[in-house]
């Protein structure tokens, strides 16, 4: 409405200028908002294209190396083979017939599902607690984001020291309970769970903040109506809060799940993929192949496979998010 009013006003002003014998150039201006008056047509035509240049550059900055990476995967490019041969899909065949890949894929999925699930449950729980406007809640809300301000690799190094069995603070605190001798990262299960725990420590606040924002944006009227009808806390939570909150939670889940599928820093800093190959996720294997062992094409093929996995997972989750959003929109507000 505002824009049309301004347009009308602008047109009227142009007419006035013509009557007053204003220069021909000004009277020839196309009707539009006052700010547009006197702006040459070529600039107005060009402006939309200029506005999308940053987006195009950003997209190109992602897609060019992606395309280049994809291109390399059909060669056998390595430090030992600087003039590579075209090998078609051989790198992918090697990956899919190698048991190491399936081991890594399994560890990657376990990690991503475990981390995303725990972070979601904890994040929503924290958000529900903080939603009550108490002094403690307001203070904790500020403190909550502190782990997010620490680089994950630094967090992993800090936790590595804290989990050190002989001098780490975690075992020191557990010692009175007879648990001072736990070797956190020395067993395959312990190493995976420790890695997930660090991820949870870093990223639960992210989920909590998104969920808290969602909670605060929910309309008050359905809750007031439920209270008038005498609905209990559990009923309200199950039938009102969660259905309306789901779109926000799912956004957090999508981010965390996709990020966890691509995890590198936390695991590499904590276990380097060990003990054995027990925490070698796909990203670590790709790094080892491409950077450490300098088999570039093979490492990139791993990355493309990982990309495909993340893409498919994102497709499914985003589609589900759309459905949830539609369903939430049906809840009376």
């Amino acid at each position, binding site marked *: 409405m505002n824009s049309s009013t301004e347009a009308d006003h602008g047109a009227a002003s142009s007419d006035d200028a013509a009557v007053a014998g204003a220069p021909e150039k000004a009277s020839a201006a196309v009707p539009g908002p006052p700010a547009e008056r006197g702006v040459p047509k070529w600039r107005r035509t060009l402006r939309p294209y200029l506005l999308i240049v940053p987006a195009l550059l950003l*997209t190109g900055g*992602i*897609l060019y*190396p*992606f395309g*280049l*990476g*994809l291109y*390399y995967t059909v060669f056998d*490019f390595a*430090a*030992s083979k*600087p*003039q*590579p041969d075209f090998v078609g899909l051989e790198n992918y065949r090697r990956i899919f017939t190698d048991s190491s890949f399936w081991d890594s894929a399994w560890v990657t999925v376990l990690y991503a599902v475990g981390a995303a699930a725990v972070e979601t449950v904890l994040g929503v729980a924290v958000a529900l607690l903080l939603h009550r406007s108490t002094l403690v809640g307001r203070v904790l809300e500020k403190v909550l984001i502190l782990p997010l301000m620490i680089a994950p690799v630094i967090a992993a190094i800090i936790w*590595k020291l804290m989990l*050190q*069995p*002989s*001098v780490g603070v975690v075992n020191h605190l557990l010692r009175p309970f007879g648990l001072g*001798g736990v*070797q956190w*990262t*020395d*067993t*395959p299960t312990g*190493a995976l769970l420790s890695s997930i725990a660090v991820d949870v420590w870093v990223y639960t606040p992210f989920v909590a903040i998104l969920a808290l924002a969602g909670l605060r944006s929910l309309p008050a009227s359905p809750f007031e109506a439920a209270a008038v009808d005498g609905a209990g806390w559990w009923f309200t939570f199950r039938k009102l809060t969660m259905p309306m909150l789901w779109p926000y939670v799912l956004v957090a889940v999508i981010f965390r799940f*996709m990020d966890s599928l*691509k995890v590198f820093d936390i695991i590499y800093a904590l*276990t*380097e*993929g*060990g*003990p*054995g*190959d027990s925490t070698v996720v796909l*990203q670590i294997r*790709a*790094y*080892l192949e*491409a*950077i*450490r*062992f*300098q088999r*570039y094409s093979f*490492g*990139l093929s791993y*990355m*493309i496979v*990982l*990309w*495909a996995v*993340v*893409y498919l997972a*994102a*497709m499914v989750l*985003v*589609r589900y998010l*759309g459905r949830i959003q539609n369903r939430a929109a049906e809840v009376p507000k």
Partner: protein
Amino acid sequence: MDMHGHLGHDRRRFLALAAAASSVPLLSACGAGFGGGDSRSDGSAADDVTGSFDWRRHKGTTVRALLNKHPYTDALIADLKAFTAKTGIKVEYDVFPEDNYFDKLTVDLSSGRASYDIFMLGAYMVWQYGPPGWLEDLGPWMRNESATGAEWDQDDFLPSLLEGTQWSLKAGTPLGQGGQYALPWGWEANVVAYNMEVFDKLGLRPAESFDELRELAGTIKRKAPGAGFDGMYGVAVRGSRSWATIHPGFMTMFSRYKLKDFTVDGESLKPAMNSPEAITFTRDWADMVKKGGPPSWTSYTWYQCSSDLGAKKAGMLFDADTAAYFQAVKGASPAAGKIAFHPGPKGPDGSLATNMWIWSLGMNAKSEKKSAAWLFLQWATGKEHLRKGAIEYNHIDPVRKSVSEDPAYRDKMSELPGFIETFEAVQDQTRIQFTPQEQFFDATTSWASALQEIYGGKSAGPVLNGLADDLASKVG
């Protein structure tokens, strides 16, 4: 047609695509590209240097160096003014911590650019960086009297060190043949350092055999905490899932048992770390770590091992002598003044075969300032700087005979019980004990992974056989 739904769907798909795609450019943007190092010329740039040798031939030039954070580097940087005063060449340098130094160097060299003219590398890296043509063969420079001053004195280097950085670039061929792809600058022998205090209190003596070492490690872990050494365990050895776990104590003891990583069969390599003797040794090593090693061993790097010796958490350290030296010097740690050195257990036939790490300096084959870079390499590996580094700084383990025999150096090092005796006992048998081959880092990382699995309780035989099968297809 549901235009809104269609656009919404596409937008979502694009978002998903973009988010996922962001993971892939990580690698392709790292600088790896075809042509990263294939244009090797047969003629060396050293041939262009003629006339009489002149340190000031390139005054006004700036060379760039990539360095790893290390006490040897500190000594070099502290003395750089002397180089600039002598040559008129300015040195710009970047120093990176060891954790990501080699990734940085690898990416930089593989990009085919000459970002750095000179860099630090280990002798093992010659096997990785040499075949793609990233390293300048320094042999022609060493042989050219116009480029190399007489006082540089090649014969003064310990022969095994120069040989350790010379290779024919052919897998399985012994070191000491072919191009000189780096110059030794500092080295580290893998020997045993121990806490004299706990040894005295428990009435122990350094182990002379591997069986004794295993027994000793277990004894210290059992008895030391009750003797006033709270939380002390027996022996600190590396255990992280990294190639660096294999090369120090493990490879040294492995070699003293006359065991091999690979056997050379004509033109191919056959993994030998699964021979019956190697399986027994590896099982015993893992057993020693379980009974007398550090808690959380699978995360142990040289840093934790060294720190534990200094903090009196470890009774012994089987690792690089420098890792113990930097805890042993006065005021460096709670254990300073109480750390002694010993060659470590002998093999069944009395062998003191020792594996070593050689910190070396190399030249980028793509450098456009090779002649100036060579002057820098000569100076950094020359008698004057290395003597100063060894005596005034902490550039210990000299690569030059003249420095190791220097009375001032021997005086300084004699403050550390057993250091010079150990150095001299192992020196003749210290060399790189691995078989040179391009897949060294893959092979040793997998080997460390296998060692972790055996430590975790898996049977050594099947694990090492699986490793050998895997490596046979990659290396053979």
